[in-house]
C-alpha cells in the first residue's frame, strides 16, 4: 500500500445501541495504522460518540470514549464535528473528549467532497 489516498470516514451513529460505532472506530484505527491520510466526520448522532465521561461497564461494553482517545497514538489528527449537530443536541464543545474542529454543514460538505474516497459508518 504505497499509494496515499485521502480517505474520509463518516460516523453518524450513537454509540452502544448497537456495536456499529465501536466497529467503525476499530476500522478507523486500523486505517490509521496502515498509514492512510484520514479525515473523520462526526455527524448527526455520531457526535454523541465524542462525549466525555462515558462509563459503559454497567452495560458490558467497551468505552467508545477510550477508543477515540487513542486517535492521537494512531496519527489520526483531522477530526471534524458538525456544529449544527452539536447545537441541536445541546452539547457544548467543552463536553467533548478530544479536540475536534467544529464546522458548519456547508464546510463539512466541502471537506467531504475533497476526499478521494469515503467509508460511510
Amino acid at each position, binding site marked *: 500500500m504505497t499509494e496515499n489516498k485521502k480517505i474520509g470516514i463518516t460516523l453518524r*451513529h450513537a454509540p*452502544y445501541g448497537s456495536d456499529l460505532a465501536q466497529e467503525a472506530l476499530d476500522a478507523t484505527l486500523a486505517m490509521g495504522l496502515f498509514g492512510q491520510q484520514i479525515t473523520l466526520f462526526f455527524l448527526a448522532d455520531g457526535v*454523541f460518540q465524542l*462525549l466525555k465521561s462515558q462509563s459503559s461497564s*454497567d*452495560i458490558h461494553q467497551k468505552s467508545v470514549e477510550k477508543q477515540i482517545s487513542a486517535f492521537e497514538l494512531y496519527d489520526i489528527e483531522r477530526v471534524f464535528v458538525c456544529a449544527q449537530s452539536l447545537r*441541536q*443536541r*445541546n452539547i457544548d464543545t467543552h*463536553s467533548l473528549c478530544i479536540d475536534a474542529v467544529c464546522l458548519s454543514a456547508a464546510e463539512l460538505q466541502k471537506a467531504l467532497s475533497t476526499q478521494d474516497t469515503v467509508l460511510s459508518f
Partner: protein
Amino acid sequence: MMSHAILHTVNQSPFTHSALEQCLCYTQECDAILLLENGVYAALLTHPLSDKLSGKKCYAIEADLQARGLLEQTLASHIQLINFTDFVGLTTQYKLVQSWY
C-alpha cells in the same frame, strides 16, 4: 395495578428515529414511558419532543445515561432514573408493555 394503562418502552434516539414520536402519538394520560438504550438521548432538554414528553410519566435506565456520558449533561428534570429491577416492577404495575424500536 392499572388495568388499562400501558408501559411504553423506547430504545431509539429521538434525533434519528421516530420511535418516540410514534409512541407519544398513541399514549394516554395514565400511561408511562420508559427510555432505554439509545432512547435515553430523549432525556436531553433540546430535542423537539421534549415538551410533549414533559407532560408524561417518564423513566430512564440510569446505566444507559451513564454509559453515554449523559449524567454530566443538563437533563429533563421530570425523568426518573431507574434500574432493571425497577423496570421489572413497572411491567408488573402496567397491564401491557408496548415496545417502540
